[in-house]
């Protein structure tokens, strides 16, 4: 099967370079809807859903393949090869920052630039390393999926929006955003929050920009700083935005930072 239909890949814009946007845990490509369109004049813009999220092909979900971030990284490489991407820009939010690292190590020719929004190479504290979560925090999170799968119900039901306020969303009146199968969300959470990619950071050869929010409980400032220190020549920009999703809460700032680096 084509990786393009499997991952609900959408291509827009035009330009000699390609910029690919990848979403993190908990949502889908809608995460980039206020950022990606600003690149369409100068880039070929690619957005996609990881398998299990959004409009991806749920039949392609394989618990074994996606038990680690490596399975998601293989998909990125397949998409890039199918689209013939060379020396492109990879923009990864949250866990997709590390998925981008793994993809660029597998196939260094596809992306010469990595933009990481709220990256974390390891969420669980380990000795001197402070990831921000204790092992018991993550156990509690993973247990909650089994105990209370309906926590994800807000993302399950299509929502009908009043479109006067948001005319740009008019054509998606009954679409649900961030659709997630609770069982797959559970396994993606495990792959995400138990990952450890610290050893991969020094191997990165792509130009790297880290966009760090303030007051982000998922990936704190010290974690962004750790990533900067361990990727040679990387740049960290501390945004004014707070929380974990500046691509939604401060899209103009994120867009500007990516363009300034590009």
């Amino acid at each position, binding site marked *: 099967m084509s990786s393009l239909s499997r991952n609900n890949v959408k291509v827009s814009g035009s330009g000699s370079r390609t910029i690919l946007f990848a979403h993190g845990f908990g949502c889908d490509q809608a995460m980039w809807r206020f950022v990606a369109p600003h690149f369409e004049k100068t880039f070929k813009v690619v957005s996609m859903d990881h398998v299990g999220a959004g409009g991806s092909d749920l039949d392609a979900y394989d618990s074994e393949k996606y038990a680690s971030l490596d399975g998601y990284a293989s998909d990125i490489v397949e998409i890039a090869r199918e689209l013939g991407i060379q020396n492109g820009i990879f923009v990864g939010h949250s866990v997709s920052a590390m998925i981008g690292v793994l993809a660029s190590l597998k196939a260094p020719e596809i992306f010469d630039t990595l933009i990481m929004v709220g990256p974390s190479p390891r969420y669980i504290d380990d000795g001197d390393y402070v990831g921000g979560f204790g092992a018991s*925090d993550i156990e509690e999170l993973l247990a909650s999926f089994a105990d209370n799968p*309906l*926590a994800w119900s807000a*993302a399950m*039901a299509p929502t009908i*929006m009043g479109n006067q306020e948001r005319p740009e969303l008019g054509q998606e009146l009954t679409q649900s955003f961030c659709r997630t199968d609770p069982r797959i969300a559970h396994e993606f959470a495990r792959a995400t929050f138990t990952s450890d990619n610290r050893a991969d950071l020094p191997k990165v050869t792509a130009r790297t920009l880290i966009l760090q929010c303030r007051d982000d409980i*998922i990936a704190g400032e010290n974690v962004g700083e750790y990533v900067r220190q361990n990727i040679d020549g990387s740049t960290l920009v501390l945004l004014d935005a707070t*929380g974990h999703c500046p691509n939604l809460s401060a899209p103009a700032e994120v867009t500007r930072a990516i363009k300034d680096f590009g």
Partner: protein
Amino acid sequence: MDVDYKQLFDDAPCGHLLVSADGIILRANTWLTDLLGYPIGGIDGKRLRDIFGMSGRILYETNLAPLLRLQRTISEVTLDLKRSDGTAIPVIMGASMVADPSGLPHMTRIAFLQAGERRLYERELLSARDDAEQGLRQQQAHGELREQFIAVLGHDLRNPLGSMSAATRMLAKETLSDRGRQVIGLMQGSVLRMSGLIDNVLDFARARLGSGIGLDLQTHESLEPLIDQVVQELRASSPDHQVQTSYAITHPVRCDVSKIGQIASNLLGNALSHGDPAQPIRVHAETTTSGEFRLWVANGGSPIAQDALTKLFDPFVRGQSGGYREGLGLGLYIAHEIAKAHGGTLTVTSTENETRFIFEMPR
């Protein structure tokens, strides 16, 4: 009428929160403050994350906050709040985002309802579903075992029967006494009946215990030679009972030819067992211009009792009359199942004049 909205907010029978864009609780109402075990005003100024458990915080940051920004509202979220003493309390949450003129988040309004009983009920449902799924998996494993058993049984029964059939054919070519030839004829009849019984038993097992009667569908120009061969074989085993045939097959038929042979064999076998030996059995097969294939077998003798008619196609139903030779009583049931598998029907009419079984299917 004056309505005191401030009082409604504070004393509403559900929880209300106003949260700033950067996650600070601006105002919590009395109901929520009490529920979480704080003194009045004790939550105001805290961060929203402070009243969430760990999984709630991650859920909010990675899923709920993005949804609020994208859809402006979320509803029916079930999560746990954290009380001042650290214990968890299940709630249902809805929220809406207030945007500033540029469309960016300005404030979030959140409402909570308690959901302890509901959560318990959900847990029970989940656990019942898990049990059911496990039971189903076990049944599927048993089903696979049965399929294998049926396949092995069929193979192991057919092989020695094939040897016996070959042996009787070889013996029939030897010079034998009259009595010897008679015995060989009887043996060949028995082998034929046994072969038919094995087919029926295997089909019964597949239909009832396994994956259903499987069909190998092919288009056959004429079914006449097949049906005629079945008639010849059964005639040889019951030489005293006259069988008349008539055919009007002018169209090809798409079917599983061995199963159609089985229907013919089962219906004719049934007529030989239960019909009056003094009256001829009539076998007729035809294709119709309206697109059907029809096969009927009619015999004389006493009619089938009305109450027996309704159960005729159930398994293990045996006829009342003597001289019964079909054994398990699966023949009509299997013929009926094969008819259904072909998208056709098997029906019966029984009068003083004749008893007639009619098999019809789209060709």
